[in-house]
């Protein structure tokens, strides 16, 4: 049900773009104005959200320790999983962000019964997530050549590596296939596994369908519909230099692609997609496990009502004297 809502929402977006361009001929709107607006929303929204998080204080020192603390010198501490220095935190965050360390932390499987095949669901999720995010990064990197003239050698090199399969399948990059497979998996697991289906909201599917839409159209405009890449490049360079020109004959599919991408950009700051920037600020991951060595300050700390020793002694004076314990006031 939730998946259907999201599917129709994305389908509707595609129709809007299609009729806007093909029916009404609002090419400039879809090729220039909406992307500009989306980018503005993305940048302002992103800054707004991150600033909002950053302004909220971290009152307590709460790293999740996933390894031995640094205590006695002869006990080997885990410098990354229970970081004892800034370098440790940097390494921990890097492993988290680049390799999805926590997601990889799968339960070691004990094969009790040799007949049973063990299905390591979490490792698959780790792989799916990793493939998706890295492919996305490389694809974005590839796209940036549209905004550059001449294209740097390094970028061509990455493109050639990524396109190594093009001898077999023309115009298709490895990352195209990888991201499609990863997204399909990420979608299927939400539908197939009951507990993931139970927790999935329309917005979870919406993000997936939007991404799938962008990717599929991206692949199609390159392969099946052979968009005029030179035209796209003129458009991109024009936008990049704030002097946009909309060349003729790029074809509606490209407009839908760029429209969905714009929606994705504008949607980003208001959605769970903010997990990307968010992880940098996560207090259970980005703090050093040194709270007994260095005092953590709570900026809004306030005095509280306590039961003082004097009050306590007043209440129990006779009892304390009775068992011969020392008193402050006799």
């Amino acid at each position: 049900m939730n998946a259907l809502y999201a599917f129709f929402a994305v389908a509707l977006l595609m129709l809007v773009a299609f009729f806007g361009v093909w029916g009404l001929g609002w090419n400039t709107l879809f090729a220039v104005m909406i992307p500009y607006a989306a980018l503005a929303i993305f940048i302002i929204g992103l800054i707004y959200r991150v600033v909002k998080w950053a302004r909220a204080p971290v009152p307590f020192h709460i790293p999740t320790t996933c390894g031995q603390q640094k205590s006695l010198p002869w006990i080997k501490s885990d410098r990354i999983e229970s970081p004892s220095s800034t370098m440790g935190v940097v390494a921990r965050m890097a492993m988290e962000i680049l390799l999805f360390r926590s997601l990889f932390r799968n339960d070691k499987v004990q094969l009790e019964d040799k007949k049973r095949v063990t299905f390591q669901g979490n490792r698959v999720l780790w792989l799916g997530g990793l493939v998706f995010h890295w492919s996305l990064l490389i694809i974005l990197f590839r796209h940036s050549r549209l905004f550059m003239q001449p294209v740097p050698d390094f970028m061509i090199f990455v493109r050639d590596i990524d396109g190594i399969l093009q001898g077999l399948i023309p115009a298709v990059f490895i990352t195209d296939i990888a991201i499609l497979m990863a997204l399909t998996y990420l979608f299927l697991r939400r539908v197939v596994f009951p507990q993931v289906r139970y927790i999935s909201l329309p917005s979870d599917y919406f993000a997936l369908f939007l991404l799938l839409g962008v990717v599929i159209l991206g692949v199609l405009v390159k392969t099946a519909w052979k968009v005029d890449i030179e035209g796209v490049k003129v458009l991109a360079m024009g936008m990049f230099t704030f002097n946009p020109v909309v060349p003729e004959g790029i074809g509606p599919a490209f407009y839908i692609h760029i429209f969905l991408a714009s929606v994705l950009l504008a949607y980003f700051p208001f959605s769970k997609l903010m997990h990307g920037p968010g992880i940098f600020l996560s207090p259970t991951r980005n703090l050093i496990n040194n709270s007994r060595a260095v005092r953590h300050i709570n900026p809004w700390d306030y005095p509280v009502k306590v039961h003082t020793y004097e009050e306590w002694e007043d209440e129990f004076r006779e009892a304390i004297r009775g068992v011969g314990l020392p008193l402050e006031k006799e």
Partner: protein
Amino acid sequence: MPEEKLKPEEILDISYTPPQKDWIKPDVKFKKGSFGYAAQGKHLKYLDLPNPRDWRPQEDDWQLPEDWENIIVKGIKERLGKNRAFQLFLDVCVRCGACADKCHFFIGSGDPKNMPVMRTELLRSVYRKNFTMAGKILGKLAGARDLSVDVIKEWYYYFYQCTECRRCSVFCPYGIDTCEITMMGRELLSLIGINANWVTEPVANCFRTGNHLGVPPHAFKTSIDSALEDIEDVTGIKVDAPINKKGAEILFITPSADYFALPHWYTLMGYLMLFHEIGLDYTWSAYASEGGNFGFFQSAEMAKRLNAKIYAEAKRLGVKWILGGECGHMWRVIHQYMDTYNGPADFMEEPVSPITGTKFENARSTKMVHICEFTADLIHNNKLKLDPSRNDKWRLTFHDSCNTSRGMGLLEEPRYVINNTCNNFFEMPDNTIRERTFCCGSGAGLGSDENMEMRLRGGFPRANAVRYVHEEHGVNLLSCICAIDRATLPPLLEYWVPEVQVSGVHELVGNALVMKGEKERTTDLRGEPLNGKEGQEDV
């Protein structure tokens, strides 16, 4: 919601498959055995907590204050502004489900709302409705829902079905810690006078007498004295235990259960024997007579109010530093919160072991050292004469407490102590120990007797691993460094693996410790024959 009154037509309605329900509509039944009683009004009054009253979770009317919705929404807003973790964790979850099967309550019950992501979603849905644009506009489609009495009931049920063990946060790719959410959820509930009695009553006790069990100073002294007698019976040595002694070098703080409950008692004897043997200049305190902090299970403010006594007493007595006994959440508070709550502790000195001269640099600001760190250092420097064979009747395994493992990283110290005091130590499987340890299922204020079924359910993953080492290696003792564990693992194991008993680590130290001038020991600290094979469990 009256409990378990079946209508005639329901009696024959035995369901083989429960209906699949959407979570967004709140739905909770308070079934006997799976929830804790509500805190009584008198305890709230004593603590100056808002909206005190007597009410019962299983009754329909919770007597909420008139403007309760307003209080909750305001409470959320305030906490969003004051705590980055709260805000971030509500915002960034992608519902990937990595945490779903990591919660011992979900594993033991299959109840989908026990998936950590769902537990958070119970609160997150209200956050969306009141604080996000998408939630305001799209409502249910964006996973938003209105605050209602049933939502509050669901919060009470599920936020007191979380032991704040942080296991989910180990597996979350963004480090979302459900413990933080549960803490916030409980604070919010507390604002409208909803608290669990098994939390609030000990808190009230502790505020007044200095400890959760409500042991007043004379009873405290009597209790410690009788431990000294027990030690004399076993070892023939008269041991001294100074209380409220000014000018001592070290203040010793441990959970009150250690001096008033079983099997904690034997761990207490272990501490006392150890301190005597090394000639430690230390003191107990009858005022700060509690290491644990049930206030932590209610609100940060309450935790701070109780925790304040430790530094206040250290200052009054003029000690150089503080030594802390075996306890889980006590150490979460001391390691991650105490200095922030009630520091700086600049009236003390950086902790140095008077016996070995070792500087505990990791505790240089808070000035509090864990007894396992302290003892491990003694053993490493050959300051103790130990006879591990005195623990030979035990084939033991070690249960990492949630808080000391995931909120501190104290993993090797207790193992080092065990390996030097025992000959037969066996680890449980990798995915059930260290940072992936399973909770006892009764922490964070869930350990009341009326909540027994829930506890047995949530503790099953732990007990299951214990049963495995019992079957594989003949393990008959589960050692741990947590007072709640020592109180709640025995009933848990009595149900699942009755052959296995529970002990603290310093009970093992007390047994193995060869004291100067002791008589030949015939029994262990439990008063059971020492060398007799008759003590050995049938393997």
